[in-house]
């Protein structure tokens, strides 16, 4: 069994008018949680559909566990759980009968884990699928994807429609699966989920890869950020003009700015702000969102 569970090479699907995905290259190792982040229409769902074997690539290929996604979809599906981006269920009545039929499709005998998941998400499976709210549908889809305890999880915006508590439950569940050695590939635009779970995150924009962030090294090597709030416009302006540190972003309307402090030099910042009338100073951990916003502002340069 290769250590690279998911391998995408040169994957291209051109829908015309610049839409689609172009030359995607990445791989996901066993037990890794891999995030894909991008704006709406950037190609997240298209990528996942290729991995599910639903789409034929124009060029390039993708594989799961060494098998081609398009040619060996059936074999691959024995090991994969999938949450689609758009949720609509077969016309089979209630959540219970849907999950029962899905379990039969997967050849699942053990229903114990299913009821654990149902309890975890506080899901009322007796409800009619048609009348379910968006969140209920999402939870049902999550149970269907996780219930066979697959080795690979492909999740397309899995937390859509979930309330904050359920979102946390989902994060817990993903971490639990990760601890078990499950490989997870998830797309999202909710950065918190990835901050909490992901090992690596791929940023995409307009169908192109623009950055691949390693979460472990990112948090260690990147400069720390402090947000400084000033009392007066004069102080705000003169600090901005005088400081030796890089200003990551400034907001004159609220008289605050984020400055980047290289490691070991936080006392330099304390010396500088001694001369100013401050409202507050707070530490802001560098998040994926910061990185994403910066990158988009820079115009999304393409990097490895």
């Amino acid at each position, binding site marked *: 069994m290769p250590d690279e569970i998911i391998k995408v090479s040169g994957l291209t699907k051109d829908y015309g008018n610049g839409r689609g995905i172009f030359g995607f290259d990445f791989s996901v190792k066993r037990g890794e949680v891999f995030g894909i982040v991008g704006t709406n229409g950037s190609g997240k769902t298209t990528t996942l559909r290729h991995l599910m074997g*639903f789409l034929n690539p124009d060029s390039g290929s993708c594989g799961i566990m060494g098998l081609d996604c398009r040619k060996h979809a059936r074999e691959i*599906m024995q090991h994969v759980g999938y949450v*689609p981006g758009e949720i609509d269920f077969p*016309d089979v009545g209630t959540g219970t009968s849907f999950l029962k039929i899905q379990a039969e499709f997967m050849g699942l005998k053990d229903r114990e884990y299913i009821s654990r998941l149902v309890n975890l998400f506080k899901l009322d499976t007796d409800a009619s699928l048609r009348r379910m709210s968006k969140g209920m549908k999402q939870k049902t889809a999550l149970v269907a994807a996780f219930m066979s305890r697959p080795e690979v999880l492909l999740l397309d915006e899995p937390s859509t429609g979930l309330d904050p508590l359920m979102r946390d439950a989902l994060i817990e569940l993903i971490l639990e699966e990760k601890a078990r050695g499950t490989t997870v590939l998830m797309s999202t635009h909710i950065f918190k989920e990835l901050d909490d779970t992901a090992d690596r995150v791929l940023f995409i924009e307009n169908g192109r890869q623009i950055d691949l962030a390693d979460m472990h090294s990112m948090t260690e090597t990147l400069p720390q950020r402090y947000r400084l709030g000033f009392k007066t416009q004069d102080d705000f302006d003169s600090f901005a003009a005088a400081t030796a540190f890089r200003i990551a972003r400034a907001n004159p309307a609220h008289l605050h700015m984020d400055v980047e402090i290289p490691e070991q030099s936080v006392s330099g910042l304390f010396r500088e702000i001694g001369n100013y009338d401050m409202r507050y100073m707070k530490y802001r951990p560098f998040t994926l969102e910061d990185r994403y916003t910066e990158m988009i502002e820079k115009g999304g340069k393409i990097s490895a």
Partner: protein
Amino acid sequence: MLSFPLLKQSVKSNSVMWGSMTGVMTLLCIQFSTLDMTRSLLFQIFYGMMTTILPGIYVLVTANKLLASQVDRGSMAYVLSTPVKRSTVTVTQAFYLVNSLILMFGIQTGAHLLVNRANPVSLATFGYTMLSGDLTSKMILQVNLSALMVCIALAAVCFMFSGIFSSTKYSIGLSGTFIGVNILANMLAMFGRLGVSGLDKFKYLTIVSFYDYQSVLFKNSDWVQKLIFPAVIALAAFTVGQLVFRKKDLPL
């Protein structure tokens, strides 16, 4: 080649439509063959029109639901995210479609056989003055077999559109046009047979013409030969639908 969970799912989600069409067809059959007022029209109206219109509506709606609508709405993702091949999906759905039609005709035919045994009708009642004797069980079976074969061909063409298109809009649109043209042309051709000159040419526009109950009543073998054409159409259409569905992009 068949997926039983999928078959179960198809039975479940199409049971209402199947049940009501089977019910209506069976009741109409019993009514036309028992009530004195309608008996004489058993062939012209019931076997002439109802045995193609009712199953026609059923296959139009059901064929679309079996593939295209599930792709369009996205629910097919749940089937295909399990170890089920696309070809297994098409074979199972086609199997469901054909067998639900067989069962539909089976129930209606069974009812007609019972009613006809209790209260036989003479062929002269239908206006065929040159024919003698009663409507036999054999004739009922043969007429229904002929109708069933044509309905399977109609179903296969709808299934083909359902397999080709990922959008209900196109699948229903083309299937609907196809079923509509075939049934309308058949009705016009029937008026042609009843003496409206010129309309008889419409029989060349519809595959329902391969369903020939007159041949059965006249005890010649035309209807048997005519079974071959819808059978070939059905086989070709199922094959095309299946091949396209296996290869195409699915937006799931």
